[in-house]
């Protein structure tokens, strides 16, 4: 029998007992709805959790540190490094090398130093951090008042709103366009063999003049005039990065141009050689999918790396388990619906004994009869699946509205905890049909086995 004939006969048979088949279909739809509602709750919660991480802008970022510096993100990794003193230094050549790696779009240092802002004759303390130009895309700058930096090393500053309030409690916005003065420590390298180093404030290496490899630097107090260009409300990168924890943001190239002294410089001075080294470099990758590849390449260079992939590993594991549990719960109703399908079809086989016999007598094969019952089961699964999606969608909307009201009462912004991804719609319908076909196995083979001679006996 041809496919469309099969479908036509199946549908006409289903319509013969509308109530019974309708109820069974509704049963399937309840099963599908509960599965869909549960799974999309899982998806929604997962997206809620990752949304915050996504805000950190870390999905396309690899953090690189030197193994010489005992400040890894992974304690085990530190113990594995047997000769940290031989590990490469995170210096300018290394940075250049990373910049030329495939898929890398930007390599910037993380700069965070203590600074002072002089404004209106008053001095205010705060962390000064350097932002790359790519930070413009971060969502913290969606609500930027004023403008972003005009250039990579522009003498400009963006302030956190709370800091701006500290400077000008009456009208922080009025700061935009004004000039403020930044006071900071400048790092000044000393010539290696200089006998008469300037005795200034700050760190200074204790010279052992006999060894001949003396190296050091001075930290000199400097001031720099900066123009306030913008004010932001939220911490950039979702408050999850070192550079997020600043109150005064400068273009990262400006911080380098000004040679702002950082803690890492102390470490560099011990190492000798005079070169500048970085504490942490953030490597931006063109495509989040290539993060692992870039991470591997940098690992091969001998550096320690960290990316969101590492951070989300356990999170993903948790959600896999959660999805599994939600899926099992959701499937329970569908399992019950499966029994309903079996019941309905067994009834149909009993009722249509004579009809099945007639069909066989006029040329239906066992396979035709079996396929007909399969088609009926599949059709119920299909319609049940569609109805179930609609029902599940309604339940999900209700969950969202409910949590929205709850969050609102607690003065929190509404979040969609329930999300129905398109793949789940397709998967639910396919799954519903598959389950129905499995349920149809027994009734269909029972129908196919009917002996036409017995069913056609004149009674």
């Amino acid at each position, binding site marked *: *029998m*041809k496919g469309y*004939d099969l479908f036509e*006969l199946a549908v*006409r*048979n289903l319509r*013969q007992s509308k109530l019974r088949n309708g109820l069974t279909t509704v049963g399937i739809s309840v099963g599908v709805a509960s599965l869909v509602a549960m799974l999309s709750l899982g998806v929604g919660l997962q997206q809620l959790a990752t949304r915050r991480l996504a805000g950190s802008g870390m999905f396309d970022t690899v953090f690189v540190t030197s193994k010489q510096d005992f400040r890894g993100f992974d304690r085990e990794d530190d113990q594995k490094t047997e000769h940290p003193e031989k590990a490469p230094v995170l210096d300018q050549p290394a940075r250049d090398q990373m910049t030329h790696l495939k898929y890398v779009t930007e390599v910037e240092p993380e700069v965070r130093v203590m600074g002072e802002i002089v404004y209106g004759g008053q001095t205010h303390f705060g962390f000064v951090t350097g932002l790359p130009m790519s930070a413009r895309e971060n969502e913290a700058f969606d609500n930027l008042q004023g403008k972003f930096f005009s250039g990579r090393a522009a003498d400009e500053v963006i302030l956190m709103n709370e800091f701006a309030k500290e400077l000008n409690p009456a009208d922080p916005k009025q700061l935009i366009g004004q000039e403020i003065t930044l006071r900071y420590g400048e790092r000044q390298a000393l010539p290696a063999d200089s006998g008469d180093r300037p005795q200034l404030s700050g760190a200074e290496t204790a010279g052992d003049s006999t060894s001949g490899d003396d190296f050091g630097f001075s930290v000199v107090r400097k001031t720099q005039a900066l123009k306030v260009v913008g004010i932001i409300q939220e911490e950039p990168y979702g408050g999850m990065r070192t550079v997020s924890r600043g109150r005064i943001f400068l273009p990262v190239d400006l911080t380098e141009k000004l040679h702002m002294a950082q803690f890492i410089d102390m470490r560099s001075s011990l190492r000798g050689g005079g070169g500048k080294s970085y504490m942490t470099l953030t490597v931006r990758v063109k495509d989040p999918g290539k993060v692992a590849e870039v991470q591997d390449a940098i690992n091969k260079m001998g550096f320690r790396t960290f990316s969101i992939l590492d951070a989300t590993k356990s999170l993903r594991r948790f959600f896999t388990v959660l999805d599994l549990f939600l899926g099992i719960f959701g499937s329970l109703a569908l399992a019950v619906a499966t029994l309903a399908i079996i019941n309905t079809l067994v009834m149909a086989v009993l009722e249509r004994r*004579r*009809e099945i*016999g*007639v*069909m*066989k*007598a*006029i*040329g*239906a*094969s*066992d*396979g*035709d009869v079996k396929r007909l019952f399969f088609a009926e089961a599949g059709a119920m699964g299909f319609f049940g699946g569609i109805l179930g999606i609609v029902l599940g969608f309604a339940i999900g909307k209700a969950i969202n509205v409910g949590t929205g009201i709850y969050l609102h009462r607690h003065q929190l912004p509404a979040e969609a905890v329930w999300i129905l991804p398109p793949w789940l719609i397709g998967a639910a319908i396919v799954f519903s049909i598959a389950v129905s076909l499995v349920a149809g196995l027994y009734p269909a083979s029972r129908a196919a086995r009917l002996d*036409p*001679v017995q069913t*056609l006996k*004149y009674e």
Partner: protein
Amino acid sequence: MSFPTTADTQPAVRAEKLCRYYPMGGGVIRAVDGVSLTIDRGEFVALLGQSGSGKSTLLNLLAGLDRPTSGSVLVQGRDLARLTSEELARYRRNDVGMVFQAFHLIPSMTITENVELPMRFAEVERAERAKRVRQSLEQVGLGHRLEHRPSELSGGEQQRVSLARALANRPQLLLADEPTGNLDSRTGEDILNLIRDVSLSLGMTVVMVTHERALAERFAQRLIFLGDGKLVSQETLA
């Protein structure tokens, strides 16, 4: 069908030592017990006998609805006992038409749909199906009420529909199991007239089970009497 030269000379049906036993309780019922017979092409044969004489069982064996316990049934040179169930289904679909005492129309389907059903199994194209449905119904003298359900028709009309359905796939063998059993005598005669006319015009072989000897004598060319599953006697009519 694969040997056209010999097929013409072959009988339509040849049964040899055909047996069909049913286990029943501790014993065995010998419904058909060693029947050998030959039916020629285009012949109209009536199977007669008491209830339980095995005539319906024999018919079911010829129809490929049942399988013999032993012996063979050759229809157009093929031994039905050796066909797979799929091949038997194809045989019932293409080579045999059946008419029943209880009509066995599908009550939820219209007349048209009932006649169309065997062609669905035979995978006949839609346009061709519509044409053949009309043809078959015209052959049995039903040109109206095509969208009615069987329950809205009289017994005679229902049997006509049943005959039209049997003719739909152009079979060479028509098997009728008490076709007049549910009809009054006048209508019964009409149906048998119709069966005879159609079989003559299409060159179909007809095997009819009946217990009404008078009717059989009027329409059949040969009477075969069965008793206790055995062939008792045969009578060829002029």
